[in-house]
């Protein structure tokens, strides 16, 4: 391995690269899907390869291959330089990544139980138990449960002298009950929507989620939604639960603070951002109770690691403090453009993709409220939770989210279950209307394992700390 990496760096330099880095990645995953009492899919995957990223003639080039022979390493390193020189044909300025970054060391996700060593029978039995309990509710047409485990070993080395080795382990699980009837399709999920919650932890995370202990409730709630009243429409006070608020943070804070979007790198695809650079340190993104942080060090977060894919160490960055916008997610190149240094947010989804600016753990810091006190303090409103649909414009301003469940709040108490709730708003107005955030007892780092960006498409795994929070004057509709 060492010889291959060194050869790639040497060949790239000999061909004319002024900078080169190599990532060698081995990825292993296991996925189990149970549906209506049968194992619907059970798979194990292994994937390995290397990518060479270079700057030559002042422009970027990247090439990658799954074939780990010395001859192929030499071909791919030379191809990366060839591609960079083609990029340079129409350049208007030289790529500048700032001062060298030299990192050395190892990082391993701390885990108590290696999920790949847990017997498959135990995993399937847990899912079968939960599956049967969800189907006790008469309206449940489809009960499904899943587990996903990932181990990624990667080595990063650069011509600047970095050499870091990392092993990242992820465990994820989830339940979904789909009830059908009365012209409705209603879904309830646990612990999070769209299949699963996921963390950089071992199998102990799966045990803690207690899928069987939550399955009957999930099925019953899906069934109850078939018969629930439609959410009323109007401008009202809402309390948004943790899983939904985590996605709100992801879409309306995490993406617009990606500095590559601000500079137009994603203009044709993922979009740009309303948080342009003149707003840094001057723009009021939210109310004074809104504090947002980007970090890659929170234990268990899906954005937690030792170094990013440019070899920049994991760290924590204030993004919003008391409502004031003060930080971006940055690469070495984009940070240089605003006179800052990278905060370690360059991540690639695999050996065959270039690192791009991605979310790490972007979270809403906890406030001071107990949830029961917050509900008691709300005379008239709606409690919304668990995402059902999500959409936001290409500058990350106008959003619309649907949630699986809503509950009426009357006189400081949770009331009847409501279905098909949608809320919509404009990002800074929405965060400006936040007047209360629940405390650390309610704060969870939720995992989003399906964040798409880039061409070719890259799916990133990101973390989002959130506790329930209250927002005033929000437009709510029943779909």
């Amino acid at each position, binding site marked *: 391995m060492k010889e291959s990496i060194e050869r790639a760096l040497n060949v790239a330099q000999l061909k004319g690269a002024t900078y080169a880095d190599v990532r060698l990645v081995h990825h292993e995953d296991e996925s189990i899907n149970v549906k209506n009492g049968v194992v619907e899919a059970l798979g*194990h995957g292994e994937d390995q390869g290397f990518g060479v990223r270079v700057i030559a003639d002042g422009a970027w080039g990247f090439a990658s291959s799954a074939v780990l022979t010395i001859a192929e390493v030499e071909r791919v390193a030379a191809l990366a330089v060839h591609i960079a020189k*083609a990029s340079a044909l129409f350049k208007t300025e030289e790529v500048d990544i700032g001062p060298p970054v030299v990192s050395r060391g190892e990082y391993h996700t701390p885990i108590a139980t290696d999920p790949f060593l847990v017997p498959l029978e135990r995993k399937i039995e847990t899912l079968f138990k939960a599956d049967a309990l969800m189907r006790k509710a008469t309206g449940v*047409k489809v009960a499904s449960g899943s587990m996903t485990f990932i181990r990624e070993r990667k080595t990063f080395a650069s011509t600047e002298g970095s050499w870091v080795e990392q092993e990242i382990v992820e465990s994820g699980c989830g339940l979904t009950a789909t009830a059908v009837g009365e012209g409705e399709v209603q879904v309830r999920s646990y612990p999070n929507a769209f299949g699963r919650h996921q963390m950089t932890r071992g199998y102990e995370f799966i045990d803690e989620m207690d899928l069987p202990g939550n399955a009957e409730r999930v099925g019953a709630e899906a069934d109850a939604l078939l018969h629930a009243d439609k959410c009323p429409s109007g401008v009202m006070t809402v309390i948004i639960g943790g899983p939904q608020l985590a996605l709100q943070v992801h879409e309306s804070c995490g993406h617009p603070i990606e500095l590559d979007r601000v500079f137009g790198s994603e203009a044709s695809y993922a979009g740009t951002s309303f948080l342009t650079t003149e707003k840094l340190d001057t723009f009021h993104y939210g109310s004074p109770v809104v504090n947002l942080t980007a970090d890659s060090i929170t234990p268990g977060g899906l954005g937690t690691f030792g170094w990013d894919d440019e070899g920049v160490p994991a760290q924590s960055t204030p993004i919003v403090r008391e409502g004031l916008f003060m930080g971006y997610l940055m690469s070495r190149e984009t940070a240089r453009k605003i006179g800052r240094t990278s905060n370690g947010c360059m991540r690639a989804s695999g050996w065959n993709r270039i690192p791009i600016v991605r979310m790490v753990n972007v979270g809403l810091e906890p406030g001071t409220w107990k949830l029961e006190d917050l509900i008691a303090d709300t005379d008239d409103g709606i409690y919304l939770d668990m995402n059902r649909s999500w959409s936001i414009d290409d500058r990350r301003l106008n959003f619309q989210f649907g949630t699986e469940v809503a509950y009426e709040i009357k006189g400081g108490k949770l009331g009847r279950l409501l279905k098909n709730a949608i809320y919509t708003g404009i990002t800074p107005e929405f965060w400006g209307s936040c007047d209360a955030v629940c405390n650390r007892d309610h704060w969870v780092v939720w995992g989003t394992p399906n964040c798409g960006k880039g061409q070719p498409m890259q799916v990133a795994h990101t973390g989002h700390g959130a506790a329930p929070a209250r927002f005033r004057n929000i437009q709510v509709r029943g*779909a």
Partner: protein
Amino acid sequence: MLGESQAKQITDRVLALSKSGQAEVLLWAADSALTRFANNVIHQNVAETNTGITVRVALGRRVGVALTNDVTDAGLARVVERAAELAKLQPENPEFPGFPEPQPIAPARGFDEAAAAVTPEGRARAVGEICRQSREAGTLAAGAFSTGAQEIAVANSHGVFCYHAGTACDLQAAAIAESGGNGYAQVTSWKLNDTLHSVESVGREAVAKAVHARNPQPLEPGVFTVVLEPYAALDLLDMLNYVGMSAQAVQEERSWMNDRIGQQVMSPSVTIIDDGHDEAGYPLPFDFEGVPKQKVVLVENGVPRGPVYDTTTAHKEGKPSTGHALPPPNTFGPLALNLVMSPGTATIEEMIRSTERGLYITRFWYTRVVHPRDCVITGMTRDGTFLIEHGELTKPVKNLRFTQGYVPALTQVDLIGHEARTLAGNDFGASRVPALKLREFSFTGATQ
């Protein structure tokens, strides 16, 4: 490129390694490259060489799946062994119908030597032309030019072996003008020359629209007649497909097709088929189980005729598969990858001229399902939205949010464009879709 004989050698080796039960191997190999640009320069430029093996081993009705991209002898032995281990460890799946038997498969053309051999300089020249046009017009161009070759082979222990090689070229360009003007254009083909001949027109279309779209004005949301460019109309096709054209969605009673098959639920001018042999798209003559793709009429003259099937969903209804299986392990069910919406006779100019008041929409963005049974979708407009008044485009407008049932929208078809354009989606395959004029489309919000 492996070529058919080397692909067969690999699949034969895998099948020979499987000592018990039934086995199936899916082999794919790709050499692909993508040149991405923004702010009128190339900022990302990548290439990839990869090969993947997916093995399904069935011991009775117990099925294990393992994947690898290590095609050495040791790698192949390990992946077969892993699939067999997984099969042994799980309970029987009574719904597993077994692997398909061999069937005749008509080959499909879809490989262009030139497209497989594009150099970095070749892509850069095409991108450079778009950036040149953009600079001259004072706009900023962004987009991607991807080229590549893919091979797919499927074999199983019943004697199935099929192989297909195809190429793909897709050029997408957006342009950004001052004061919020945006434009977009795209061309997709498996033939390089088709793409290269369109470079100049793609640049011209995107840049001209961005210039025309400067200073967009706010507009109150409401119900409007819409003229959808093919880029926007593609979303109707994609979401109808994703939400409800799969037999699994219908069997689970969550499809918009449920209770509507055989009924007139769209305008009679709407016909949607899936055709893996359509040479104007990205042809693929068989699915990922090695079953030949049938030409499936999904909607005929506004009447849903039924979904597409893979072996598992077909077995549940005692029908043959239509050849629409996805790669294992698959929880989505079957999916149509070669959709065609039949064109009409209208030009976009005729659509605009015949509209008293409406919106001309280039593209939809971030569309998501609000309710699956009517295929109710929310999303935003993007890259050029204009108000139509008295048969003319009168002003650009700021982007709007819509929340609209796509099935009800297609009851409101007024005109269909005369040309079905080939457009690659974000995942597999490519669709062919014309422009549409719909009498009513509901907009529920606006952005700044």
